[in-house]
């Protein structure tokens, strides 16, 4: 990759430049004048890891406890240094790690005390300058750190969260050859509005084009802005789930909020990190849907043909003068999949002084996807600089840029069904465009039939997209007193996706009669200009050592402009010239452009009070105006309250085993503005597709429903945290979320609108429970073993329907008291052993030979798992570290109907091995009905025949890393060196899996199978 070669030297030179600037700063930067008492004193300020001053820290020379002093209210201390060289001082504070610091001479020494209980003391930011220790938090927030993420596949950061966060499900879909990811926090609360969580990166919301996780390209691809970021830049990801924290995010918070914090510079000498990871990616063949080989298929097809009363003499696929079928057995997977590879190179440097520090990082990621025709090249650059402008004024600047190039081939989705007796290429290596067989039921009469494999399109068509994402953010913080601060953050994000498509004139469709004979080209460009301004004042003070009061008031404005344009042409001289301008026919060059706007204005407030670290209450409020809402509901209010009680801080609390116990509860509202906004007034659309002849044509594309109003979600959340012996922690969190005025594009009579009308149809709840158990099983000098187990269970229910709102889908219906996705199916009763006919149970439970949707009943088989989650184990022995993570699903049923048509389409499509298990002999029962071409027209209709149990375990990630001993690497001028072997998605297990038949294991991954990765990583620290 030529760009790749240029990119890294460029980055290196930048790092050198930055480091020289930094050293200049460091020389010029003098510290704050010390409050030196005498020349023999050691003095300084003691703070905790959030930077808060720590009063009451005991400081003494080692072994001379009698000389101890304590830090004052501002954390300042001063202690006399006894004469003699290399005295060690001890810093002690309850709940903090004791520190021993060797001092050679008197002078200033500031100390940061670290909590000895990382889990409870971890500081979690919920945005808007609000950061709290986990112990003091009223809300529910779950943090994942960079250390937990570092061995996950580097393609997308949303996919990295799989199995780590209780209640967060990550649904991958790779059926189109380009993986897309859906995230769900605590189930689906909406029907038509987006169910995706809101992403906030370094305080700035990510534009996601209204109602999906992807920014729509205009062509066949969509790019998630989340995939444009280098996961290596992430310091932490925090998932906010309950009302207390989510209410701050107002109209888009109901699906949860994911806060991403990127890495920041550390003061001190320049340090550099470099890592290289190289991986092998492929598809686990055991997870692909199994299809028949040609001999099996041929026998079956003949059987189906004869069983249908047709004469075997007229069987379509007989060897003929144009084509031979005997001996051909094509495995179509190999033409659409391949062994792929991935490479990730990261380089970062950080350093600086008290006054200014900078981190810059660059990354290059390349993926040769195991789905043929797809690849990704991603270049990322990030810079984060903090400057102390004056005593009370500081600023942070973040610049973030990425460039991503994707090669795209949206795989022909039913390639597996191509008959194994066909071949992709002719004998001379050219693409096979025709197969020769008979298509007459009554005569054997060979004709040429077009044969679509799209392999020619994969090779000859051009499909790529270039995405560019640049974000600049400036934060200025003015802190006139220790308790009060004013912060402004201004951010501008520019994003552009450019897609270039060219359909070759030499493919089957290119030369065919239905499209152009001369090549056709389309270019799309989508832009996003996203401006964001946020101002907030924060107050934080502890009175009398016990009364902690915080408050925040803020204002926020966001404006998104989304222009897009496209140009297309056809009629090219050859495939080498693909640009629209060079089309030889000016009347075939067409262009369009359009733009959409969205603006948001909000007022935010938060107040909390904590008493003696024992009792905390907090309240949040947001008032949000949204340009997309119609006049009467333009403004919306969201609020929440919460309280927590740290029982273990009570004086009376004494327990030998229980080291901590706290109880929390929150309640509040959130909204969802991400819906189609033309719904209340209806819409007419003028478009090419509705033109009549050459005249502009317009049709109604949305039927008005002026009574529409917006969804609101009420969230209730309880949490109990238990700590045992400071080594085991259990958090259990039951919750209830109720969405009212649920918006749905509900089916109405087609006389009114055949695609449905947006209505507020009812109320849906999600009730569930989540837990996470973290433990340090063994901890000694050489060996540590820790475990984290999380799990969640969610039950979705339609609580109320405002009218008779049936969905019109055949396997679902909504009625009060059932899940919105409850399976509503006819019960399959197997095969009549005498005739081989399919049988069902009717409504009353009696056997019937007639399939009717009248006989649908609710199934006890829920689509919702009984429990799902992840388990990870971390072992450290000396310099070795081993991590094993898997996720599990227990219970739940998947409806998957594509496989079983009992011979109806056997002449056109390959069959799954299940088709072999069909009835043949009267009196002998079998799993499937008799096998007849064009026979059973309804045996494969929606019935319980097509349910698969979702119980499964997936081995997500195994990594083994080795830190080369420091004394070895030091000689090479390296601080640290780590070598790692990483495997992702190594195995998938389901109880019913079989070598010869399909099971949940093979249908779970759609038409492509599970992608796995093996990689090796070297990371160096200078």
């Amino acid at each position, binding site marked *: 990759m030529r760009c790749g070669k240029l990119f890294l030297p460029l980055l290196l030179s930048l790092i050198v430049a930055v480091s020289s600037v930094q050293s200049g700063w460091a020389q010029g930067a003098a510290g704050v004048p010390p409050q030196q008492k005498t020349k023999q004193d050691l003095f300084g300020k003691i703070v905790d890891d959030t930077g808060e001053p720590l009063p009451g820290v005991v400081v003494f020379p080692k072994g001379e406890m009698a000389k101890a002093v304590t830090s004052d209210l501002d954390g300042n201390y001063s202690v006399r240094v006894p004469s003699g060289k290399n005295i060690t001082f001890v810093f002690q504070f309850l709940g903090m790690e004791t520190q021993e610091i060797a001092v050679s001479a008197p002078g200033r020494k500031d100390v940061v005390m670290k909590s000895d209980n990382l889990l409870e003391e971890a500081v979690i930011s919920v945005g808007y300058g609000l950061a709290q220790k986990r112990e003091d938090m009223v809300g529910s927030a779950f943090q994942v750190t960079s250390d937990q993420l570092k061995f996950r596949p580097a393609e997308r950061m949303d996919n990295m969260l799989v199995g780590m966060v209780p209640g967060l499900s990550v649904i991958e879909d790779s059926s189109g050859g380009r993986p897309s990811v859906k995230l769900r926090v605590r189930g689906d609360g909406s029907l038509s509005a987006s169910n995706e969580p809101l992403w906030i990166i370094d305080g700035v919301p990510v534009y996601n084009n209204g109602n999906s996780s992807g920014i729509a390209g205009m062509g066949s691809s969509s790019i998630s802005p989340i995939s444009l970021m280098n996961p290596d830049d992430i310091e932490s990801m925090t998932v906010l789930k309950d009302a207390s924290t989510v209410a701050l995010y107002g109209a888009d918070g109901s699906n949860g909020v994911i806060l991403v914090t990127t890495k920041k510079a550390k003061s001190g000498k320049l340090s550099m990190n470099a890592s290289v990871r190289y991986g092998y990616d492929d598809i686990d063949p055991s997870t692909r849907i199994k299809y028949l080989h040609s001999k099996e298929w041929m026998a079956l097809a003949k059987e189906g043909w004869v069983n249908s009363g047709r004469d075997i003499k007229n069987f379509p696929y007989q060897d003929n003068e144009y084509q031979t079928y005997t001996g051909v057995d094509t495995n179509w997977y190999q033409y659409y999949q391949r062994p792929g590879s991935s490479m990730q190179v990261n380089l970062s440097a950080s350093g600086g002084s008290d006054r200014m520090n900078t981190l810059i990082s660059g990354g290059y990621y390349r993926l040769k996807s195991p789905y043929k025709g797809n690849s990704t090249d991603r270049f990322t650059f990030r810079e984060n600089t903090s400057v102390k402008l004056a005593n009370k004024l500081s600023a942070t600047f973040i610049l973030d840029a990425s460039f991503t190039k994707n090669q795209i081939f949206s795989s022909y989705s039913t390639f597996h069904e191509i008959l194994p007796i066909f071949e992709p290429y002719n004998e001379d290596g050219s693409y096979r465009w025709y197969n020769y067989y008979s298509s007459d039921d009554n005569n054997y009469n060979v004709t040429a039939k077009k044969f679509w494999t799209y392999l020619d399109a994969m090779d000859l068509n051009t499909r790529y997209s270039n995405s560019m994402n640049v974000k600049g953010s400036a934060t200025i913080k003015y802190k006139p007193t220790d308790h009060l601060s004013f912060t402004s953050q201004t951010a501008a994000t520019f994003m552009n996706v450019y897609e270039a498509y060219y359909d070759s004139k030499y493919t089957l469709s290119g030369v065919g009669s239905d499209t152009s004979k001369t090549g056709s080209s389309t270019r799309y460009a989508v832009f996003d200009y996203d401006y964001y301004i946020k101002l907030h004042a924060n107050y934080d003070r502890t009175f009398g050592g016990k009364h902690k009061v915080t408050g925040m008031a803020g204002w926020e404005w966001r404006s998104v402009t989304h222009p897009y344009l496209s140009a297309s042409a056809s009629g090219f001289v050859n495939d080498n010239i693909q640009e629209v301008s060079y089309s030889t*026919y000016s009347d075939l060059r067409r262009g369009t452009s359009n733009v959409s706007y969205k603006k948001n204005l909000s007022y935010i407030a938060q107040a909390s009070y904590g008493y003696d670290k024992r009792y905390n209450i907090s309240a949040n409020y947001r008032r949000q105006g949204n*340009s997309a809402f119609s006049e009467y509901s333009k403004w919306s209010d969201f609020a929440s309250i919460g309280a927590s009680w740290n029982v273990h801080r009570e004086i009376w609390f004494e327990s030998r085993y229980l080291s901590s116990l706290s109880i929390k509860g929150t309640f509040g509202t959130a909204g969802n503005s991400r819906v189609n906004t033309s719904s209340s007034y209806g819409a*007419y659309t003028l478009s090419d597709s509705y033109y009549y002849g050459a005249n502009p044509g317009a049709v109604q594309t949305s039927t008005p429903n002026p009574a529409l109003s917006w969804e609101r979600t009420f969230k209730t959340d309880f949490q109990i945290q238990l700590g045992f012996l400071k080594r085991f922690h259990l958090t259990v969190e039951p919750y209830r979320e109720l969405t009212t005025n649920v918006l749905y594009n509900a089916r109405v009579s087609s006389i009114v609108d055949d695609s449905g009308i947006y209505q507020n149809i009812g109320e849906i709840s999600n009730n569930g429970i989540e837990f996470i158990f973290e433990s340090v099983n063994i901890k000694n000098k050489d060996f540590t073993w820790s475990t984290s187990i999380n799990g969640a269970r969610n039950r979705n229910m339609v609580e109320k329907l405002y009218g008779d709102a049936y969905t019109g889908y055949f396997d679902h219906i909504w009625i009060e008291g059932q899940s919105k996705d409850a399976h509503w199916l006819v019960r399959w009763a197997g095969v009549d052993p005498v005739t081989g006919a399919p049988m069902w149970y009717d409504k009353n439970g009696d056997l019937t030979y007639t399939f009717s949707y009248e006989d649908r009943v609710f199934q006890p088989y829920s689509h919702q798992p009984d429990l799902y989650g992840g388990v990870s184990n971390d072992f450290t022995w000396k310099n070795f570290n081993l991590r094993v993570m898997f996720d599990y699903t227990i219970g739940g049923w998947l409806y998957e109907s594509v496989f079983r048509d009992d011979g109806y389409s056997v002449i056109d499509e390959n069959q799954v091995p299940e088709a072999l298990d069909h009835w043949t002999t009267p009196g002998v029962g079998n799993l499937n009905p008799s096998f007849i071409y064009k026979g059973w027209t309804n045996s494969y209709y929606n019935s319980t025949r097509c349910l698969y149990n979702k119980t499964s375990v997936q081995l997500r990630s195994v990594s083994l890393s080795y830190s080369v001993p420091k004394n070895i690497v030091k000689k090479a001028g390296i601080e640290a060196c780590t070598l790692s072997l990483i495997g992702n998605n190594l195995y998938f297990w389901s109880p019913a899996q079989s070598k010869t038949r399909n099971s949940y294991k093979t249908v779970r991954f759609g038409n492509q199978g599970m992608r796995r990765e093996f990689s090796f990583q070297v990371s160096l620290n200078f």
Partner: protein
Amino acid sequence: MSVVSALTFGGCKAWTDMETSLLHVDPIGKSTVASFLGTVEGYQAAGEGMHYRLYQLYDKDYVRYAEIMGDLLKITVDANEGDYLAFNYQLEAEHVATYPRNIWTEGWSAITETNNLLYYGPDLKKNCANDAQKAIVDRAMAYAYFGRALAHMALCNCYGQPYNFTDTHDHLGVPIVDFIPKYTDVLGRKSVAKVYAKIIEDIEAAMDIFQKISANYGADGEKYAQINSITDCYHISYIACEALLARVYLYMENWDKAAEYSDKVIKKVQLSPRDEYVNMFRESQDNPGKEAILRLNGYDKTPSTGNLFDPARTPSFEPVPALSNRFDASDIRKELLTYVGEPTEPEMYAGKSFPAVCKFLYRKSIGAEEKHCNDHFVLRCSEMYLIHAEASAQNNDITSAVNDLKAIIGRATGVAASAVTISASTKDQVLSLVADERVKELCFEGHRLFDITRRKENLVRSNGCGARSDALTINYPNNRFVLPIDRMELQSNPNMQQNPGYQEYTAQ
């Protein structure tokens, strides 16, 4: 004090102004229904959009449905499931991906456009600046009345038994929707008698407007109304209204009126001459045909019907072999049953001829691209001759009927009408000849099934057409001659009544 309150007020005002400006967004692209139809340009585009909807109805499903359910096609293995089920009379309410639901939604989508036009038209006309604008609005309203009639008739043909199914005509038709329906409205089916009354009322309303346009708007008047001749067969016209009325009265067996209206059209529109006949189908955009009264413009649209029959792809249907035997050797119409492979086809096709439905194979060169255009005939003058012949024969006016037949047969076989000899002399003989000519003239244009059922005939297919044995003969009367109301409609509309012979829907 007043200063303070003025300041406070001013401050508040400034604050709300700021909020308003920070949230203000101009809508672009899509418009609300009311604002879009509140301008003449928008209204005119909606009139074209309504034609587009009618095209969709004809091209996607209506025309092929009437033919697939008929006896003139042979199915191939490449037919999709919906076509296979329709061909074998196996369609059920559950088949929501094909005819039962498709025709329903396409028909009502067209009617939605017509009702919007008729609702917003009168107000818009009041605000028109000049006559030119008023003429545009009037014309689009006339389009809408006609379109509403045509779509109701298409729906009634597919979902209701023919008009003469019962003597009282009170068997089930379709809902009559002459207003903008809300989802809370009761939308139930009306009798066929009422539907036909509404169809006639709408056509007459359209004619009334066309006459006023012709009277009030000078030179533009005739151009817009097309009362005396067809100058733009791709748009609805006064003559199209007369022609549709002729067909409506034919279906109603009102022979006098059928003869009257078809005669009016015949006097104004000529038949396409023999040497232009094939090109009328195969070069439609360049030669829409002298006899065209109303065609739907398929320019640059997905040619759904063409794809169904296209021998260069994988055709789902071919003409039954027995059909070509019905033609004289010299009959020009036979050419439309045979396809000659183009040189780009594979060797076993190029230059060779084989049976194919060629009425929809026209490809238009749009720049370098060749695109199918299925310019469906809604009404053409040949049909008027055959209506006139049938109505005259029913009225025992054998001479008129024979003369009409001679015009059609003479044109097809290349002899003068006066030189055509017709031996038929009794009413039944002439009617049988008319039926035969209707097959030869109008085959594959969306008439066949309805011709069989309105004549109360049995559907009898020839062996070798590929139908299942139980679908070779379908006796009249038969519940399966009409489509079921689809399951989704039944589920979402409690007032909808299923056709007899199909499963009812009962809500849980």
